């Protein structure tokens, strides 16, 4: 089996799941440009910094990718991340073992995802509005319950997740790689993966073909809630604290990476590999701007422009395909 065939068979289903080669080219171009413009870019410390910065967004982006491919949207991931971190921090302070605390945090993400999914699929409420409301509710509750105070994490196991290494590679990077490999394996090979694309492509057609669309949408939002909760735990591990204001505005990074990676806001298109490439591209640009000492407010402007450009590109590409 040739490497090209192996790549296709393992990483991607044919057709909609293929990664846009233009994205790979963009990644290479940005990489080469940064290599020449900054002497610090190609240092191992800097590349590791990019990887660490990317990890938390990457975990949340895995769930957001499948939601967007299924034609949905989840704005509540940042709030879910904050709530997840805070719940575990409270439980550890109250004497619970870390395994129980983490399980409860993931369960909280599942519950938030299930609420989103139920309202969106069974009550047919627009996902943007539903998850925007959920964003406000969860964030607000996090502030109310904590009274706005942060909790410093003292649990060494939790902190080790953010700082520990295995064979020189940070543990959280390994976790991200494992998560992405699992998604890459599952999506092309299971009905779950196939129905994500079918629902995003034409939910009515999927329903008429006998696909339990509402139930699958619920599962998709639950998965997104769970990955956001996991991302929240990793964010707290990296920063060493759990704050009600954590991951505020995080949605922008995650959604930009997913759309940049080729997922279509109209659903039916996108890949987990594409999201990985989108993340690398976005965080390399961020890093390049930081190395060039561009003020952080300008970095926000650039991020917004990248998102807009990615959405416009998707619209143009999609329009061309729809015309055929």
């Amino acid at each position, binding site marked *: 089996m040739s490497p090209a065939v192996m790549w296709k068979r393992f990483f991607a289903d044919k057709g909609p799941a293929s990664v846009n080669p233009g994205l790979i080219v963009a990644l290479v171009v940005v990489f080469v440009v940064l290599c020449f413009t900054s002497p610090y870019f190609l240092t191992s410390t800097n590349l590791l910094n990019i990887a660490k910065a990317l990890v938390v967004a990457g975990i949340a982006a895995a769930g957001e990718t499948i939601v967007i491919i299924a034609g949905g949207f989840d704005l509540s991931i940042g709030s879910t991340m904050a709530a997840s971190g805070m719940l575990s921090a409270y439980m550890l302070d109250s004497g619970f073992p870390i395994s129980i605390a983490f399980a409860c945090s993931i369960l909280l993400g599942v519950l938030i995802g299930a609420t989103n999914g139920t309202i969106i699929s069974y009550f047919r409420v627009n996902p943007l509005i539903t998850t925007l409301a959920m964003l406000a509710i969860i964030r607000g509750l996090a502030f109310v319950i904590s009274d706005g105070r942060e909790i410093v994490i003292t649990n060494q196991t939790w902190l080790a997740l953010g700082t520990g290494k295995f064979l020189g590679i940070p543990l959280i990077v390994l976790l991200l790689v494992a998560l992405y490999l699992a998604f890459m394996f599952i999506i092309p090979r*299971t009905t779950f993966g*196939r129905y994500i694309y079918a629902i995003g492509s*034409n939910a009515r057609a999927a329903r008429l073909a006998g696909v339990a669309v509402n139930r699958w949408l619920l599962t998709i939002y639950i998965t997104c809630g769970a990955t956001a909760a996991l991302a929240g735990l990793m964010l707290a591990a990296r920063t060493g604290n759990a704050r009600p204001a954590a991951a505020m505005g995080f949605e922008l990074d995650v959604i930009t990476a997913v759309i940049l990676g080729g997922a279509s806001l109209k659903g039916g298109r996108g890949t987990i590999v594409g999201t990985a490439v989108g993340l690398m591209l976005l965080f390399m640009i961020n890093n390049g701007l930081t190395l060039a000492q561009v003020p952080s407010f300008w970095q926000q402007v650039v991020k917004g422009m990248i998102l807009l450009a990615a959405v416009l590109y998707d619209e143009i590409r999609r329009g061309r395909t729809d015309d055929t």
Partner: protein
Amino acid sequence: MSTPPTDEAATEPGGVSQSGAAPGGRTPLIELSGITKTFGGNLALEHVDLTIGSSESVGIIGDNGAGKSTLVKILSGVYRPTSGEMNLAGKKVDFHSPLDARKNGIEMIYQDLALCGDLDIAANIFLGRELKRRVGPFKFLDRDRMAEIAQNDVANLGLDLDVHREVGKLSGGERQMVAVARALQFKPRALLMDEPTAALSTEKIKKLLELIGELKTRGVSILLVSHRFTDILHVCDRVVVIRGGKVAGEMLPREHSTADAMARMTELMTGDLLENGAVH
């Protein structure tokens, strides 16, 4: 091809009847009796009786809003009737979803084809009924087997298409054939078609009508909803006319000249009598 039914008892003189009676000489496959469907306060279908025999092709015509689509959607499990009874091969059935209808051997080809443009041909053909293979406690999609079967399906329809192609990138005629291939994949007892020729070229229409004829010889019952009288007359053993949510009448096209059949169908559709080709 099956022989045209000649049961005069089922029709009024001139081949026009006022009820959905059983076709002569055929075993009834689908029997609807007293089907009524209301949407809110609107009556879409009122006490419709209709029988479709085994290997019979029945055409449904009617004006826009007459209730044709509602009728096929009830048969295909999209809607549940407000009242009335449906029997399939003598057994009472109550479809709660399109999947129920498909499980009972009733396939539907929708007017918009209901395909997922971002999925490939093979994935569309098997959508909702994917083949899986077991690996330990897990079940994975059997993509190779589905692709192989789908490739045979499209080849059997005379198409030279790679089943890994995305459906959204196919022509209208090719998409239509994918919908047909999907409907035939699970060997249906009855095939319902809602305006199947609407988006096709003359050449593709001819092919589709030939295919319908061939399916009848294979024992598949056909229900064809179309605005094109010529298509209906070409392939249908019997034509049922719906007007205002009721069965206005039915006729056996092969007992009439084309002009006469067209005139009678128009009469039944509009409720006006035709004399010398003019509607009064």
